[in-house]
């Protein structure tokens, strides 16, 4: 299966990268970064009276879904072009 082979290839590359990075511990600012990000999120959530976060979430999700759909369409067109001699190539 092509997809499985492709994903396995990516995982293998990631493993290679992970192994190349070593096993260093995270520094202190990284360990505190989570709390700081939480504070930012807290501030943002408190802005709910001014900013429609739900609408933004829906919009962002729709745009991401559109990207997935567009990518899928392009892949399908690319595959079909293999049977049409290049006609309809993505």
């Amino acid at each position: 299966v092509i997809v499985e082979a492709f994903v396995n290839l990516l995982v293998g590359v990631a493993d290679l990268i992970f192994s190349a990075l070593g096993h260093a511990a995270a520094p202190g600012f990284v360990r505190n970064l989570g709390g700081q990000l939480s504070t930012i999120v807290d501030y943002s959530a408190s802005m709910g009276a001014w900013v429609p976060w739900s609408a933004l979430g829906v919009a962002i999700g729709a745009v991401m879904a559109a990207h997935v759909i567009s990518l899928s369409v392009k892949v399908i067109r690319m595959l079909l072009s293999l049977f049409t001699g290049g006609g309809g190539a993505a």
Partner: protein
Amino acid sequence: MFRTRLRVGLAAALAVLCVVITPAASQAAVGPWVSVTIGLPPPASLSGGNCWVSFQSHLDSGSGALMTGPGGRCYGGPDITPGSDQHGEQGEYIEVHVSGAWHDSAGDCEGHAGFVLGDHPDNGTVRVAGSIPEGVVIPLNGADVRDVGCDIAEVCFEYFHNSVLDDSDTVCVSKSIPAPAETETTGECQEGEPVKVSIVQKAYPSGTSVYDSLEVSLDVAGGGPLTGWNFTAFERGQDSGVAHNQNPGGDIPKGKVIRWVRREATDPVPDWSNVLAGVEVYHFDGASPADDWNANQDPESNRLAASVPLDASYWFGGITDPGHCRWWFGEKVVNFPNTTQDEPFAAANSQVIPGPEVGDPPEAPDESNWTPWGGILSVLNSIWNAIKDLASSVAGIVGQVVSAIGGIVDDLLDGLVDLFVPADGFFDDTLDGFSDAMDGTTLGNYVDALGDITPAGTSSCAGPSISLPMVGPGTYQPLSACSGGMSSAAAATRVVIAVSVGLSAAFAVIRIVGRGFGWDPGTGGRE
């Protein structure tokens, strides 16, 4: 020019294809052939089979025969020929010969023959039910025909399938009998020659004690009666020779018919072969109608009798005498030029018309017996069958092509699915392996250090709290929109942001998806 030539070439190829396919398609539907001859006398045995034929002789409005096949289509072009033109006068017979090659996909046919006299009250049907083997003769000289005294306009043969009259074909011919050739003369009526008497109609035994009908016909030549003759008809054996009808007047009129219909026998008849039916004709010159014919008969010199066993057969006979030469059935004994009255009816036999081998198309009809209706209908029937077979063949080919294309598409889709769609649980397993690989590494340690990012407080209209030590102790909430003008401003801001984000997202989705299809609405052109 090229397109025109291409069209012409395709048309020619299609025509050739039709010519090539049509005979094969027609032949494929042909099975055993059954040859049928309908005439005189009836077949002795007709049984079994899946088709039946009914022959109807219409004296007033023509005649017809029906052929159907509950087991399949009966094909064939009948060739019918009236065998006699003894029409229009009392006591005469109707004889019609029909022959044809029939096809029944079930293999055989049954038939019955009959006649219908149009609106005449003497309508009747003589039926001979049963299968029609290779060649058969069906009689039409039913008992009721003889006293009709009407003309036969035409004789038709109609056949249909599965009793569907709308799917019938009819062949008709006008009544005619060709004049006999003079060379066929076989005898003359001579002075002193014995008068012949015969039973001329069938007896139909029914059970053991009755017969449906028994008819005796006498005829005399010329236009006048047979003066000085008397006769009796009898059934001997069952009733000991009791005369059931007689002519006490002494004159035998032309076309005299003696008929018994469904006579009940006194006792059950043990053996019909021992029962005789006959006609006796007595000649005593000078007798008057009041004379007792028994007293005046001269049985030794002038008694003429004929008797035959009562079985399911026909007998034909006639009466001739030196002064009234007229011969009906049997051997031809007299010749009258330019007339057919002296022609005997056909011999009582069945004629087998050899049919082609199974699977072969019907043979071309004999030109001597060819009839326009038969030929035309046969050709039209063949064309129609060919069209149906061709349409069926084309439909079958199209269906096979569509099925094949559908199969290819299905196989192709199945192949694509097998090629690109991973097995169930593949991504879960891969993600678990990815996490395991990342654990303990530098990147994994950084990710773990971040932990969960969660908001510390809850959302409310108060907005974020800000501490400003330089200004003073405590916290400030500059974006509090719980009341007053800030609330209205916050609501308006939410609306503006929501609309803007919604429209932007909509346009973005259209553009992104459109680019997937190679359409960029933002520029109006293709990528």
